[in-house]
């Protein structure tokens, strides 16, 4: 991560906090709408509007969702979310009222699941799930066809509101689930594939040395770790975990199994995230000290222990069996016998989240550039049982960090968080694995950002009339409010615009459909100003109600439109704390 990029990342979060402080000194940059401004849904959507919409008293029929804002001081039972109300102030102004400040708000609304939908289209197509295979966004590409199992075709949107219109008139997504197959298709020529995702690490050199191809590195935004269930012996002894923590040669694993651009993880969170690399780095590898510490902790070297992993290749885990075997060998060097257990993917995820594995290999690919996406998810109060009982000092620090709007104070908190993780050792961070995409050599404008949100509208496919990009798997659905796999989200990102977005190829957050989103001094109200004249692909015009309903349909578990694809809407609670529960 270059110093300039790290600075600019920290600046984007600092800027949000600075805006709050500036508003406190120079007057409010945003104001709460008066409570009497609750309003009805537009008449076109009245027949299928959610029951909680209130009558209009403003010139614009703006929606306030829910009609009566959540009382943050007396929350409904089971409500853990951060939203109190989302409302359309006027045609081009939306206000998000939060129960507590959220420093990562702009990063979260930029996430792919929050691409803005047309409220009328939602009303017409969400309930019967037809929206899943017939998307309607505002993006530079619009949907043309989806041949199930084969490909998805998009065409350039000639009415795109932005300056950066799509260069290639046609964009086709195909898929192949092995890296070798994807590379074979790329090598077969531009008619078969313009570009592919996730080149196998072993093929990096082959692609780089092929004059007909180009390798585009994707900076690491992942973490691979060796996890402990801290409730299970012998790993319930913190001294034992600390000993193992310095007994694993993480550099050896990184150098042996990861592609160029990967790094040893001295912290759980990549350094590209503000606060990620604050505090003391992970202690250095010292085998002799590790063995001595294990003996001092009365570790039982006579027993054989179990190590679990799943063979599924992931961005953070390009060679699962290799790493597992190396871990086993390194434990053997410490005098500890391990038996490796390989589990099927679905079984593994169920069991690991239930805390059934005492020692296991797992990882994480980041979604948005904030500490809450990494450490809160894994070690916070809402984390699953994979690591066993949570550490109160750590969860308290994480809660403080998530709500601290002062960037300098936030950094201090995350220093403490990183030090506590190194002290308690719920896991050993191994590597931040990089990855890469590959394209035909004559393709220009291609990028591979760390967040995986690759933009295809600036891509010129050489002398071909279309871009053909081969991803890892078939898209599950194109209503991305209810999708979580990277391939589906990548497809959505070409057709939908969120209020803010990440800079192409990077992690900086910039305005998109909103010209700005401004917080009040406390950071509990965010007022977003929309661009005027933006059209959806079906010709409808963007207004504030579309934004309200985009979020409301995901947020309100009781809404008849809260149907989605699988109905899980699994990103929403992770981003914004929880659903509005059913009464």
């Amino acid at each position, binding site marked *: 991560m270059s110093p300039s990029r790290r600075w600019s990342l920290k600046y984007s979060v600092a800027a949000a906090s600075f805006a709050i402080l500036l508003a406190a000194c120079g007057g409010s940059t945003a104001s709460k709408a008066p409570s009497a401004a609750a309003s009805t849904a537009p008449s076109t959507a009245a027949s299928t509007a959610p029951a909680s919409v209130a009558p209009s008293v403003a010139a614009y029929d703006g929606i306030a969702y829910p009609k009566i804002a959540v009382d943050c001081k007396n929350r409904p039972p089971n409500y853990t979310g951060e939203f109190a109300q989302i409302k359309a102030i006027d045609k081009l102004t939306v206000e998000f009222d939060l129960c507590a400040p959220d420093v990562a708000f702009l990063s979260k609304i930029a996430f792919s699941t929050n691409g803005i939908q047309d409220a009328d289209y939602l009303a017409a197509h969400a309930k019967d799930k037809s929206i899943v295979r017939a998307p309607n966004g505002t993006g530079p590409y619009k949907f043309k066809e989806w041949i199930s199992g084969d490909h998805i075709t998009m065409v350039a949107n000639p009415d795109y509101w932005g300056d950066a219109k799509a260069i290639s008139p046609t964009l086709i997504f195909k898929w192949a689930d092995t890296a070798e197959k994807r590379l074979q298709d790329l090598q077969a020529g531009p008619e078969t594939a313009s570009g592919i995702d996730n080149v196998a690490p072993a093929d990096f050199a082959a692609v780089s040395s092929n004059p007909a191809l180009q390798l585009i590195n994707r900076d690491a935004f992942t973490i691979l770790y060796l996890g402990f269930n801290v409730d299970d012996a012998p790993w319930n002894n913190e001294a034992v975990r600390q000993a193992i923590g310095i007994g694993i040669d993480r550099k050896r694993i990184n150098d042996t199994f990861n592609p160029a651009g990967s790094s040893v993880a001295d912290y759980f969170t990549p350094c590209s995230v503000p606060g990620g690399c604050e505090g003391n780095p992970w202690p250095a590898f010292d085998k002799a000290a590790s063995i001595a510490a294990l003996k001092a902790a009365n570790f039982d070297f006579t027993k054989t222990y179990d190590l679990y992993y799943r063979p599924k290749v992931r961005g953070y885990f390009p060679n699962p069996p290799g790493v597992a075997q190396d871990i086993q060998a390194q434990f053997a060097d410490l005098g500890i016998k391990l038996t490796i257990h390989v589990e099927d993917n*679905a079984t593994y995820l169920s069991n690991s989240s239930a805390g059934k594995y005492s020692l296991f290999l797992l990882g994480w690919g980041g979604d948005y550039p904030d500490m809450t996406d990494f450490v809160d998810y894994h070690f916070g109060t809402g984390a699953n049982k994979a690591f066993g009982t949570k550490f109160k000092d750590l969860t308290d620090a994480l809660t403080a960090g998530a709500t601290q709007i002062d960037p300098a104070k936030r950094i201090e908190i995350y220093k403490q968080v990183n030090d506590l993780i190194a002290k308690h050792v719920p896991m050993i961070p191994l590597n931040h694995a990089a990855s890469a995409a590959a394209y035909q050599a004559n393709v220009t404008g291609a990028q591979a950002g760390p967040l995986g949100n690759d933009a295809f509208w600036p891509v010129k496919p050489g002398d071909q009339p279309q871009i053909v990009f081969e991803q890892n798997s078939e898209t599950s659905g194109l209503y991305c409010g209810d999708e979580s796999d990277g391939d589906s989200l990548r497809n959505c990102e070409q057709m939908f615009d969120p209020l803010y977005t990440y800079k192409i190829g990077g992690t900086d957050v910039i305005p998109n459909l909103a010209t700005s989103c401004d917080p009040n001094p406390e950071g509990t109200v965010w007022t977003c100003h929309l661009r005027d004249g933006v059209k959806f692909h079906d010709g409808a015009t963007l207004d504030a109600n579309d934004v309200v309903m985009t979020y409301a349909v995901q947020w309100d578990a009781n809404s008849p439109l809260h149907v989605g694809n699988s109905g899980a809407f699994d990103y929403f609670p992770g981003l914004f704390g929880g659903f509005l529960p059913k009464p």
Partner: protein
Amino acid sequence: MSRYIIRRLLLTIPVLAGILILVFFLSHILPGSQCRALIGERATDAMCADFDHLHGLDLPVYQQFVNYVAGLAQGDLGASVKTSQPVTTLLIERLPVTIELSFYALLFAVPLGVLLGIVSASRRNSSMDVVTMAGANLGVSVPIFVLGLMLAFVFSYLLKGTVLWLPPSGRLTPGLTITPLVVSWGLEDLKGPLRNIIDFFSNIYTFNALITAQWVIFVDAFRHLILPAIALGTIPLAIIARITRSSLLDVLGLDYIRTARAKGLSDKAVVRHHALPNSMLPVVTIFGLQVGALLGGAVLTETIFNLSGVGRAVSESIASRDYAVVQGFVVVIAIGYMFVNLAVDISYAFLDPRIRLQ
């Protein structure tokens, strides 16, 4: 004959019921939740509890089975949890791909296999016989995924830029679109079973392109099938060649063949008119078994060549615990297999008059 057919059809009912029960309960006792298979690392306990309740997975398994059978009785095979598509729709999309691939694989394997078997039997112990049988052994021995990858490497990579280049994956060149039959025939508003049948045949691209004279599409679709058909058909070809040779040799050793030769008939006439028809019964049996096996979906071939057929769909659905898809596809494959076997058994009567008289 008609009583025999009716009896066989009635026997399919308990067989299907057994398959249905077995597949349903086997897929539900697989470890790992559907929720976590779908959502992955981000799934939480609360999320999965809601998910299970939404999809009826928190009901007792027997209750889920009853609900499934009730739906099945109304023609509802359920829907994919991953894509929300009805299983019926997925079948209409995926089964034609497998049928088309199987057709061309057998079109490659059967005539060539029979021919090689005849040549080998006619020239027993000659160099031609040895080479043919060695080739058959090789065909059976080489794993499909090795053969498929080698074919793709040679024809898609090494021969790139030549007239012999063949596409390594997919059904059509990206950018080409086949016009559905309902559009060609002006039936876009048609709904119901007839629409499903038309869509089914529409998804057999070479058939669709042939009858609607979309010649560019036909040639392109056919070119995309060459490599997977060869890869998939090599094992049936080898088996059919060996069985044909073996069966023909048995028949050529019979007295009536000696009589035919003694009458002055040429070897060619003896083989073609007298020996071959009587040696076809085992070949037809093998053919039927191969059709059934191919209809089950050639997972490896479909994966290597990126074809969205039945085998790949079932394989992906098992991994993602998409129970409805697994159940629906297995039931349909089982029905197909049983009907193919029935057709094979009925064909015996036409091939061998002795069976007909019995």
